[in-house]
């Protein structure tokens, strides 16, 4: 005769709402792009406090930052967290790829035997998981009803206190200057490798005597990077216009003018007009390109929009940089 004890064992891991120093150091490292792809939590069921059969179940991605930001907000709660396998990717990106998705949720409910752990049939999902999840299909195949919680984990307490209702404020994605700032280190780190390559080429050109590329080129370039990767993202809504590349170009142009003015233009120029024009063509284009790449990190761009922007920006950037490089090379031959 079969009895319940012959069923699979139900494993529930204990976790806490306290973040340790290691958790905090870990998230700092991720911001700087150190080991960011290896920041995972084991999928499965976790308990916070002392949950019973009527305690709420929250669903999280197995990216450690997603998991941590959720459990941090659950202090004082008795709850379960069902961590699904999103290959260590955050909720929003995983939902876009479909790994934070209907099938994985249905499977994970079966694996963790959630139906035996709790007596209710509600799952609280982060709202940003919605692009990957067909709520009514989860209900159809697992019997669990999907309730979308607030966008930000910090609103969870209010959401629960309001009887699992989110205000429209909690439903909206925001993108504050601080949100944008914390995304910029990775953007900068991503430019290190191509930059080293560019420096290498310039150094070679110096060696074979086509140079000389010197200090002005160096800080001009570096400034354009910072304008594109940090300044434009942080100042985004205040820069006139809508397209990211345009915004980056505008600030880059200001930077290029500053570089030229530093070097005495227009009254006591330290270098020729060709070179000054070269900077005006190259530096803003560089910033424009980097700013355009920030569309991916931003929260309010659409595929159709980015595509439209790129169709104009990319040819313009290429032409402008090529022209600029020609001017500067011609200049060094004169």
């Amino acid at each position: 005769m079969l009895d319940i004890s012959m069923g699979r064992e139900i494993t529930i891991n204990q976790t806490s709402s306290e973040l340790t120093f290691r958790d905090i150091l870990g998230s700092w490292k991720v911001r700087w792009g150190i080991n960011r792809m290896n920041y995972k939590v084991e999928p499965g069921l976790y308990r916070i406090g002392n949950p019973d059969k009527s305690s709420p179940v929250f669903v999280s991605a197995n990216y450690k930052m997603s998991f941590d930001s959720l459990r941090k907000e659950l202090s004082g709660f008795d709850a379960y967290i069902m961590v699904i396998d999103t290959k260590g990717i955050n909720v929003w990106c995983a939902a876009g790829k479909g790994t934070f998705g209907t099938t994985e949720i249905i499977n994970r409910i079966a694996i963790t035997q959630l139906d035996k752990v709790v007596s209710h049939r509600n799952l609280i999902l982060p709202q940003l998981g919605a692009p990957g999840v067909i709520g009514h299909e989860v209900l159809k195949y697992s019997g669990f009803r999907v309730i979308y919680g607030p966008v930000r984990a910090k609103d969870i307490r209010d959401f629960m206190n309001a009887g699992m209702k989110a205000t429209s404020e909690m439903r909206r994605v925001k993108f504050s200057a601080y949100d944008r700032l914390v995304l910029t280190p990775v953007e900068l780190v991503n430019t290190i490798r191509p930059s080293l390559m560019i420096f290498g080429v310039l150094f070679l050109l110096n060696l074979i005597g086509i140079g000389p590329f010197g200090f002005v080129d160096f800080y001009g370039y570096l400034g354009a990077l910072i304008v594109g990767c940090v300044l434009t993202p942080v100042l985004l809504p205040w820069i006139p216009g809508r397209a990211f590349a345009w915004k980056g170009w505008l600030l880059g142009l200001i930077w290029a003018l500053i570089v030229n003015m530093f070097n005495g233009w227009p009254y006591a120029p330290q270098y020729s007009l060709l070179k000054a024009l070269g900077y005006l063509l190259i530096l803003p284009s560089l910033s424009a390109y980097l700013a355009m790449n920030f569309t991916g990190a931003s929260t309010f761009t659409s595929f159709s929009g980015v595509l439209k922007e790129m169709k104009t920006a990319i040819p313009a950037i290429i032409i402008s940089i090529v022209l600029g490089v020609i001017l500067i090379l011609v200049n060094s031959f004169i």
Partner: protein
Amino acid sequence: MRNRYLKNVSTLKMGSEKCTGCGKCLEVCPHNVFVMTNGKSVIAQKDNCIECGACVKNCPFNALEVKPGVGCASAIIKGWLTGTEPSCDCSDGSCC
């Protein structure tokens, strides 16, 4: 200060005759695109739409349509270079 992106680009479409006014799309949309008017959901701020597809997937009555995609330039470039559908390939960083 509000962040705004390009106008008149979103591929979002609503088939009003199918909409039952269940309100799911208002619940999942992260950019406040819909409002409920006379028992039906209406696209009120189309330019806010980021084509994430959340509303389309979660509408139980298939009233909505959008071509979902990632609003990420480097993903699109990679898509062009490799001839694949652009997807947010987070392994090289900046996407998310």
